[in-house]
């Protein structure tokens, strides 16, 4: 038999394909991870603090303590993701060495490098990155990201930015597909996007990797909205374990994601869920408090 090849595009992007239609939940310990898995999460994101607490704490937010990540990896059989700072080669390598299944090079943490993102093709572990528009998504795919998500505005419980980012990417993909081929290079210049990635998108008729919604999803209806707008799945950060009844909330968000076009079902599963996380109006945040503009 031929030799096994690890870390190929097919293996990394395929891993993300398997998460489609599912919910990935932020957890800060083994107990929360088990609740998430029992509710039907397709993966968990192991963190030291959820984004809303990162906002409250202030200071520099870094990769989680490896003990927390190991505890979560030991507690569940679904894939475990973890975040490293943008451009932090060492944090990324540490997470990879621990066998983390997916690394989020995330604007939720304080960037380590304000100019350069990681060259993600160098790693065996797959990466997910945030994007506000097609140019940003294409740059990350060019660097080797195997999954894209909206940035949204994390930890706010406010869906408005995630909606903006999802609609922007979708509209720009449609525009790209309707162009004649001689217009693509100029579009690549205008978007700041690698030409080859744009050509791949035209060939496939869609992004070559899955695109999840993230940043501000707080209710089952929010998850359904993002699926309706074309998300392949959703990340829920503070929304679940900052809700009054996390178990019920987690189950309801999973169901609303699967049956996002069955509004009677969403009505019935949204009843008596208890209080959702308290949200923040993004407009009241100061420039330096915004996370989405981190990275480029």
């Amino acid at each position, binding site marked *: *038999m*031929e*030799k*096994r*090849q*690890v*870390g*190929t595009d*097919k*293996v990394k*992007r*395929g*891993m993300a*394909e*398997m*998460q*489609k*239609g*599912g919910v990935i939940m932020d957890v800060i310990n083994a107990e929360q991870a088990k609740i998430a*898995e*029992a*509710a*039907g*999460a*397709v*993966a968990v994101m192991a963190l030291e603090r959820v984004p809303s607490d990162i906002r409250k704490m202030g200071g520099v937010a870094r990769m989680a303590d490896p003990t927390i990540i190991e505890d979560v990896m030991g507690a569940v*059989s*679904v*894939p475990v993701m973890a975040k490293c700072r943008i451009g932090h080669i060492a944090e990324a390598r540490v997470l*990879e060495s621990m*066998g*983390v*299944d*997916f690394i989020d090079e995330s604007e939720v943490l304080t960037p380590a490098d304000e100019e350069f993102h990681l060259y993600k093709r160098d790693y*065996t*572990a*797959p990466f997910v990155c945030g994007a506000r528009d097609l140019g940003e998504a294409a740059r990350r795919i060019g660097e080797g990201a195997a999954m894209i998500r909206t940035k949204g505005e994390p930890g706010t419980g406010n869906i408005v930015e995630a909606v903006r980012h999802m609609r922007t990417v979708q509209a720009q993909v449609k525009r790209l597909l309707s162009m004649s081929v001689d217009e693509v290079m100029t579009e690549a210049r205008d978007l700041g996007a690698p030409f080859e990635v744009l050509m791949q998108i035209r060939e496939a008729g869609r992004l070559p990797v899955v695109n999840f919604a993230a940043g501000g999803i707080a209710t089952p209806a929010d998850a359904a909205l993002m699926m309706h707008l074309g998300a392949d799945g959703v990340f829920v950060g503070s929304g679940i374990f900052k809700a009054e009844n996390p178990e019920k909330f987690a189950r309801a968000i*999973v*169901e609303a994601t*699967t*049956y996002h076009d069955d509004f009677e079902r969403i009505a019935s599963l949204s009843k008596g869920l208890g209080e959702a996380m308290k949200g923040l109006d993004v407009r009241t945040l100061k420039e330096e408090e915004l996370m989405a503009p981190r990275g480029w």
Partner: protein
Amino acid sequence: MTTIGVLGMQGAIREHVRMLEALGVDTRVVRSVEDLNQIDGLVLPGGESTAMRRLLDRYGLLEPLRDNTQLPMFGTCAGLILLATEVEGYDAHLRKIPMTVKRNAFGRQVDSFEVALPVKGIDETVEAVFIRAPQVASVEPVVDVLAEVEEAIVAVRYDKYVACSFHPELTDDLSMHRYFLDVVAANKHQLA
């Protein structure tokens, strides 16, 4: 006309539909019991088996699928786990193929791999992508072993059921799906 259903809970649904359409059959995404009456075979896609099981339970599809003895099924990765009579350390799901499977048996995602794989009954090697893949730890003698990776069983056939640990739906290699359609055709012939 042959219609093949793809279980539409979660995972690589669109990819299987694409493969089946390329082979010229009608497809239907199955999300309710009623859908089962309108198909000649069912594909259980790759995804997260724990998440899929929760959804099967919640939407009342587990029992009807477990009780159905007529419908040919093809499971890939998580789908293979769903078809086994025994799952190491977990409850079994649809219990169609008398075998014991071990989840995540090749390791974590960093150990996921692709390889050109010889499969019994298929002339060319199959482009096989393994992602946090399960292995078949043991089979009853009635089960036909179709492929192995370094002595670990990764593809089987039993009666009208076909299962593999890898993801043909992530490639352009149609051979495993063609193999399943032959099983579906034979079953249809038998029923008629």
